[in-house]
């Protein structure tokens, strides 16, 4: 993991001291809200529906146990004893008081964390594959580049007042777990003739105008990557639209200006910028890479794992669902579900955070990850330690065996917290999970991603859900529209709208009809919901969602 240098610590201390005086000046009246708001947003502090909200960056979703413990401490001391992990691998505290936010930021700095650029029209927290450094299918660990990008983009003077926010994601594996195609820039590590390079996608994004990213450059070498990205952001920063916030993202520039034209501008800018890069970024990257050396994997016989797998059906079910193949055959990647049926997706109590920290320290080479799917990962666990982890998790309500299944739902905070939301998301997620748990069909249904957003901004990634749900306000009543066939992987696609929306009371039965129809329609257990949708198209699923139309047609 990256270790803060003296420079990093001094930078953060100075920044936090600045923000402390800004808060004091707001409280004593020397700053108006109009003056203070951009300052607080630059430091991750929002004002939401019921309270302030502090969004803390978890760079590329990587944490150590000391950091996780500190997040738990902050939750207990200054919040209501829990935190909410988000679809951008961050954590949000929903109840901080303005006066204490500088103390929270100081506590974060103690463990090398911050909330800088988690809001505002800046380059946001760089996200990455949550299995980075551990996955069996990986070409290279994307985190050193992600850390380089964090350092480059943090307080970058050219990129503090951009047309709109800018999101970058990176994956080091061909199986894209980082939704790179839905980011302003998506980076995919590729290998060509034995050389590692970077494919750069541009103009992906969700929100009111969902777009899948297009290939801006097929292969950028390591030395060229940072100047190439800087050139891309710089071109957009100058020619991107500032007249209309809904048309300001780079995806609109790609759409209106054209990919070829943008590429030509970026190439011109790159030639200028490349000349200014003296190679210092490559020296820095080499230092960063040393921080991400693989842990010293241990060798053990697998008796405890095999014994538990053979004799404990619950453990077997959890292991089948929540473990992923590690690049070391004696190891496993453990995904801890924050989606217990009926609970809030992505929430963890301080006690749960402490337990996960302890397990990472005892069994996981001190590493944790947060996924954009709002779960926590122990990326490096010797299989023989997996049973001990499972039993400890189970005792603390963290033993749910549902990763990738219908109850492993992404949900934004929705109108329960968010000032922008047009409807609630969380209760819909809770009810779907509870209902399918009652039906005992979850494992039979198999891989199925439901993603729920409480407004058009799509923080819940509904466009790339196999089943997407978006909550809207229709004449003062919550209304939920369904999209089908979306996916956020390497073959990313935006879901298609199924038809009219459903009320809060109608939406759960509608989802049930849809999923039961899939069980009837699939040609075998191996055909997933998404595969069945791709084979059959919208019609049979629409018929299941809107049976009244079928009845009318029959009359």
């Amino acid at each position, binding site marked *: 993991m990256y270790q803060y240098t003296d420079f990093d610590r001094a930078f953060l201390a100075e920044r936090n001291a600045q923000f402390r005086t800004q808060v004091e000046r707001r409280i004593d009246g020397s700053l108006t*809200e109009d003056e203070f708001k951009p300052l607080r947003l630059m430091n991750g502090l929002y004002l939401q529906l*019921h309270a302030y909200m502090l969004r803390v960056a978890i760079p590329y979703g990587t944490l150590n146990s000391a950091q996780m413990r500190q997040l738990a401490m902050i939750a207990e001391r200054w919040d209501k004893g829990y935190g909410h992990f988000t679809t951008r691998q961050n954590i949000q505290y*929903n109840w901080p008081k303005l006066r204490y936010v500088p103390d929270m930021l100081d506590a974060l700095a103690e463990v090398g964390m911050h909330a800088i650029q988690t809001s505002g029209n800046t380059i946001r927290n760089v996200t990455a594959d949550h299995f980075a450094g551990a996955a069996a299918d990986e070409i290279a660990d994307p985190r050193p580049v992600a850390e380089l990008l964090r350092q480059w983009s943090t307080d970058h003077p050219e990129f503090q007042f951009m047309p709109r926010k800018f999101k970058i994601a990176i994956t080091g594996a061909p199986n894209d777990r980082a939704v790179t195609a839905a980011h302003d820039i998506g980076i995919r590590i590729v290998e060509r003739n034995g050389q590692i390079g970077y494919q750069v996608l541009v103009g992906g994004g969700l929100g009111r105008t969902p777009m899948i990213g297009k290939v801006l450059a097929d292969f950028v070498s390591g030395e060229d990557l940072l100047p190439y990205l800087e050139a891309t952001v710089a071109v957009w920063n100058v020619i991107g639209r500032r007249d209309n916030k809904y048309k300001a993202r780079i995806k609109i520039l790609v759409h209106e200006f054209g990919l070829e034209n943008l590429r030509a501008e970026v190439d011109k800018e790159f030639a200028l910028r490349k000349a200014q890069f003296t190679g210092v970024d490559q020296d820095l990257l080499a230092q960063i890479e040393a921080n991400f050396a693989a842990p010293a994997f241990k060798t053990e016989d697998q008796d405890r794992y095999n014994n538990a797998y053979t004799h404990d059906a619950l453990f077997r079910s959890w292991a089948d669902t929540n473990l992923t193949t590690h690049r070391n055959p004696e190891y496993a990647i453990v995904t801890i579900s924050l989606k217990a049926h009926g609970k*809030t997706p992505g929430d963890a109590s301080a006690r749960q955070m402490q337990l996960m920290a302890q397990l990472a320290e005892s069994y996981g080479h001190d590493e944790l990850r947060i996924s954009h799917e709002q779960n926590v990962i122990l990326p490096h666990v010797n299989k023989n330690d997996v049973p001990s982890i499972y039993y400890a998790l189970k005792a603390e309500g963290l033993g749910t065996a549902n990763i990738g299944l219908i109850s492993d739902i992404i949900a934004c905070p929705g109108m*329960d917290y968010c000032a922008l939301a047009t409807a*609630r998301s*969380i209760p819909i997620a809770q009810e779907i999970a509870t209902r399918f748990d009652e039906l005992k069909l979850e494992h039979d249904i198999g891989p199925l991603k439901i993603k729920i957003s409480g407004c058009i901004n799509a923080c819940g990634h509904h466009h790339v859900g196999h089943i997407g749900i978006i909550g809207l306000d229709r004449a003062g009543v919550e209304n939920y529209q369904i999209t089908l066939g979306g996916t956020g992987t390497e073959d990313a696609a935006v879901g298609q709208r199924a038809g009219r929306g459903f009320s809060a009371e109608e939406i759960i039965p509608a989802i049930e009809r849809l999923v039961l129809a899939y069980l009837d329609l699939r040609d075998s257990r191996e055909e997933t919901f998404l595969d069945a949708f791709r084979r059959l198209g919208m019609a049979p699923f629409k018929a299941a969602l809107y049976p009244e139309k079928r009845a009318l047609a029959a009359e």
Partner: protein
Amino acid sequence: MPKAFTPRVVTANDLLEGDVIYQTADDRWSRRLEEAEIIEDEAHAQLRLLDAERQKNIIVGVYLADVAKGENGPEPIHFREAFRRTGPSNYFHGKQAGF
């Protein structure tokens, strides 16, 4: 014909706590919607909003919210205002848990 003015309350968030607050007839800020002043005249509403906007070192994000006149004072019309009055639905936190 212009639309008839419907009853409103002046509401905002408290600067320090972030909590939802309502302006009362006797110029206090209350945590409870039922204590809010129901404003039934448009000109008076604009004046009360101006009064509130001047208090920018105490409150943030002031606006007029539609209400209905209920037995115990103002009642929210839109579900957003109902959540603001109560708190989130996934935890017993916020106003519903006391002040």
